[in-house]
């Protein structure tokens, strides 16, 4: 390693640059202090079967990590495959198959040292060829990958001897160790394109897989983490109806459920055998404006709308308190990057009237496209509609069908609701949703300064400078007239009291969808 290059990874002592500053997953840090409840207690015990009820039923369930786009698949992925790194509760990358890593000082070249003795469930050893294929396959034309945008910054992946992998990046990325651990970059065998019978190096092997019906996984006795996993069998199946799901947990038919809703939350909170597992996060449902068309290219119109949102009421009645108030930009208030100097936008009919007057919209109807496919969007829209009457705006809500929402509605209508799960780093989210032509830039928003700032934060190791850059990013988005983010939504799941070892990770439900190798049953 050349002088002046950066080091990190668990095997290395903390350098002048603290691990905390290094990680961009900082979105999480403060959030955990308050509400997230940890179920980690006692010494792990071996044995038993854990059953999880999913909330989405889909015959699109898959073991092909390139196609992962929902919790069902993420949980299957983290159980059967291994990853180079994993994000921890503090938002920092922790070693998994990669034992340690180091970067050059520009953060454009990353060298990962690979753990020895990791093998696939069929006995074949994991080689550097397998790892390179697992990453680069997302770039192939014939692979439709949900990670295509993320892979674009990797210019080459090569092996340096049997134990090292070298990544060359087109643009600097100080968050790279977190990026390489995302669900899509599961380690698979070189040349695998058919994942009907998945072979991984993970904690479990597949006993039965029926898409949309059930997945049964059994303990992999040769898993490279000594003594893990603790449970013998893990089963998951869908219970799409929210109250049926809560009932199944209360009656003990399942041990964990994803997404408690409505009355189910109180019922589980009251029960003697299960509890509510809350994960504070920066997941959000937003109302976006397509700024490349009328009438949504009218910034005053969008700003006026943003003053019609009673955020406190959304939090109390729609989310039942399970969330935090947001300020029309995607950075959470607990993040060290949060710009506290930016005034909090609140319900203000007078300010709304002022902006509507300036916009010249008059009595023409404005339509918000929402739907059951976007969590809580209809409820938020209805609350806005009430205030719109007071402000003299003719606001209509159009319910759109869920299944074609992302192709026919998002980005295609003037005003529409979108829902985003937090990415492991804010930079990842900003890159995917605020750059010109980016896959999730549904608003078609373009701003050179913003794009430059996004690139700068990715290349900046210094926390204070990053905070400044992120502060400006928040101001630009807050005033863009392209997005309204009323609240951040917590993940609210239900877990039996028998389950131990589960800790919340703010990037998803139930320990960030990555928990099967560390939970145990304490009957």
């Amino acid at each position, binding site marked *: 390693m050349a002088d002046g290059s950066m080091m990190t990874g668990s095997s290395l002592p903390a350098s002048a640059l603290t691990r905390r500053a290094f990680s961009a997953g900082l979105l999480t840090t403060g959030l955990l202090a308050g509400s997230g409840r940890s179920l980690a207690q006692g010494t792990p015990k071996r044995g038993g079967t854990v059953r999880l009820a999913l909330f989405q039923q889909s015959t699109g369930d898959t073991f092909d990590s390139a196609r992962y786009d929902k919790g069902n698949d993420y949980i299957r992925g983290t159980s059967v495959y291994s990853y180079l790194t994993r994000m921890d509760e503090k938002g920092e990358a922790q070693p998994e198959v990669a034992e340690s890593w180091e970067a050059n000082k520009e953060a454009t070249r990353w060298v990962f040292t690979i753990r020895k003795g990791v093998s696939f469930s069929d006995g074949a050893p994991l080689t550097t060829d397998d790892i390179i294929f697992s990453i680069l396959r997302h770039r192939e034309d014939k692979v*439709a990958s949900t990670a295509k945008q993320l892979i674009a910054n990797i210019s080459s992946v090569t092996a340096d001897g049997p134990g090292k992998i070298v990544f060359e990046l087109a643009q600097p990325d100080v968050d790279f160790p977190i990026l390489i651990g995302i669900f899509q970059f599961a380690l698979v065998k070189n040349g695998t394109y058919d994942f009907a019978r998945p072979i991984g190096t993970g904690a479990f092997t597949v006993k039965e897989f029926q898409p949309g019906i059930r997945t049964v996984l059994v303990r992999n006795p040769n898993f490279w983490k000594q003594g893990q996993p603790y449970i013998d069998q893990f089963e998951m199946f869908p219970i799409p109806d929210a109250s049926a799901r809560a009932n199944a947990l209360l009656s003990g038919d399942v041990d964990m459920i994803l997404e408690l809703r409505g009355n189910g939350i109180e019922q589980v909170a009251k029960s003697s055998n299960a509890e509510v597992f809350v994960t504070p996060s920066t997941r959000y449902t937003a109302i976006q404006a397509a700024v490349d068309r009328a009438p949504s290219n009218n910034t005053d119109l969008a700003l006026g709308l943003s003053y019609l949102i009673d955020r406190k009421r959304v939090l109390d009645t729609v989310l039942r308190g399970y969330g935090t108030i947001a300020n029309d930009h995607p950075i959470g208030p607990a993040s060290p990057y949060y710009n506290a100097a930016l005034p909090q936008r609140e319900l203000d009919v007078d300010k709304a009237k002022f902006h509507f007057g300036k916009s010249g919209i008059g009595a023409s109807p404005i339509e918000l496209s929402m739907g059951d496919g976007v969590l809580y969007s209809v409820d938020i829209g209805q609350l806005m509609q009430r205030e719109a009457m007071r402000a003299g705006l003719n606001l209509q809500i159009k319910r759109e069908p869920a299944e*074609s929402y992302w192709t026919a509605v998002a980005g295609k209508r003037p005003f529409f609701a979108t829902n985003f799960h937090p990415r492991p780093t804010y930079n990842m989210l900003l890159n995917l949703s605020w750059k010109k032509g980016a896959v999730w830039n549904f608003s078609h928003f373009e701003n050179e300064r913003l794009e430059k700032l996004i690139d700068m934060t990715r290349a900046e190791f210094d926390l204070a400078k990053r905070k400044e850059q992120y502060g400006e990013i928040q101001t630009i988005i807050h005033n863009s007239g392209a997005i309204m983010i009323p609240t951040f939504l917590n993940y609210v799941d239900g877990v039996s009291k028998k389950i131990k070892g589960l800790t919340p990770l703010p990037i998803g439900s139930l320990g960030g969808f990555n928990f099967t190798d560390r939970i145990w049953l304490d009957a």
Partner: protein
Amino acid sequence: MAHFIAWRLLATLLLLFIVSLLVFWACEILPGDVAQVALGQYATPENVKALRIEMGLNQPPLQRYLQWLVGAVQGDWGRSLVTKSPVSGLLSERVANTALLAGITTLIAVPLAIALGVVMAMWNGRALDRGASIVILALSATPEFLLATLLVLLFAVNLGWLPAVAYLSTGSGLGQTARALLLPTASLVVVVTAQIARMTRAILGNILTQAYIEMAILKGVPGRRVVARHALRNAVGPIANVVALNTAYLVSGIVVVETIFAYPGLARLMIDSVQSRDLPVVQACAMIFCATYVLLILLADVMARVFDPRSLPQRPMDAI
């Protein structure tokens, strides 16, 4: 009779063909194709293109339909576009589940409903009939989801006697399966029994006012014998049709019960596959539903013919 059945079967084939065309056309005009829907938020032009090629959607619609038709005629339902596994494999467990639930429900509900209907028709207008009518009307007006949810709350959550979901692991024993199916079967039996019993009462009540029944009573035939030999015989045709329609409903229309009990059946699969635009699966489900309806109604018509008194060999009048 054989001629009648043969003609009807031929018509069924024609109907299935027409339905398959309609389903294909409907899926084509739905917004968003299977590749776009599968990719959801990740549906970039490159991804959609890659997936379309992988799924074989780059061929013209007519060619895709013909390929499907040629396969289907030979008994090959093709492969699911979404899971890439053979449709027959995807269907097998669901068909078995649906057949099991519909079969048990029919076996319990039909005799129960007909017995109830007959009793009510015989005691038409009296306290027994009125009481039963009120209960049955109330039950048939209760939505399945309400009934099912109440049953779950009582028997699964509060009493803890039965599982809240009808989830069957592979290789579940008989006892386990029976316990899992008890609540869904009970909710369906209540709904279906109420329907059939009311129809039976109406049909039979109508027949009992006919002149030939009056004639039989005047001749001194005992009441039970009048109902059993003269009235019921004529009621078989219409009742069989009601039963057929209800059974077909149990195969294709119980998505609410399947959802509440998380029971993987055909109705739910149909909805899932329409949402994901998975045409081969939609087609297979549509064919099964259509064939079930047509064949059950054919069976009802055959029964109506067999039991039609006019089809009996002529007997001397005084045998009555």
